[in-house]
């Protein structure tokens, strides 16, 4: 869907570097989510946000930082990248937390060497 965009699509970086993944949605959805997808684990929630300036931890938050100063943007930062953070990262948004579908971006494939 064009309504939620992630950048970059691909990123290669080195251990110890800081890297920020961007997510932008045009629907004015209240809720936004960051997931990582690894083989055999499905989708695991890293952080989510219920509104601007409201964020909360998901299942696997360690090593990640998020912010949400504007409703439409929800960047994810790896402060000091580790190889275990090599993954595909998906951003999603929904109108409410429950009973509404989540709409996903195209993902960022992140490789940490």
């Amino acid at each position: 869907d064009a309504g939620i965009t992630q950048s970059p699509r691909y990123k290669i970086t080195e251990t110890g570097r800081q890297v920020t993944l961007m997510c932008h949605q045009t629907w004015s959805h209240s809720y936004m989510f960051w997931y990582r997808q690894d083989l055999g684990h499905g989708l695991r929630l890293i952080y989510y946000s219920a509104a601007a300036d409201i964020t909360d931890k998901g299942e696997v938050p360690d090593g990640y930082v998020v912010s949400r100063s504007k409703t439409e943007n929800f960047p994810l930062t790896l402060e000091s990248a580790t190889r275990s953070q090599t993954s595909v990262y998906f951003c999603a948004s929904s109108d409410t937390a429950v009973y509404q579908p989540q709409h996903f971006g195209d993902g960022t494939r992140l490789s940490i060497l």
Partner: protein
Amino acid sequence: GQQVMQIPQYQHVQEGEDFTTYCNSSTTLSNIQWYKQRPGGHPVFLIQLVKSGEVKKQKRLTFQFGEAKKNSSLHITATQTTDVGTYFCAGNMDSNYQLIWGAGTKLIIKP
């Protein structure tokens, strides 16, 4: 912790055969959603079930939600090459904002 188990992990079928994936939760779900992810793509919402015993159909796809709201299934009749991908279930536990995801079932069509 709260889990949604999804089986099988992979299913190989000949084109035209049926396909079924199952999800089981350790606790009661308030709803269950199904998503499809094509190879190299992102998850795309298919359907949501909310009521106990609910059955919904989308063309060749049939979705069921168990009476106890702890299990669900997706059945595809007469698979086609366009059905290839990974199918995920995801549900909310009561009063919990986080969707709990199954690990997915990858549908592979044998040549």
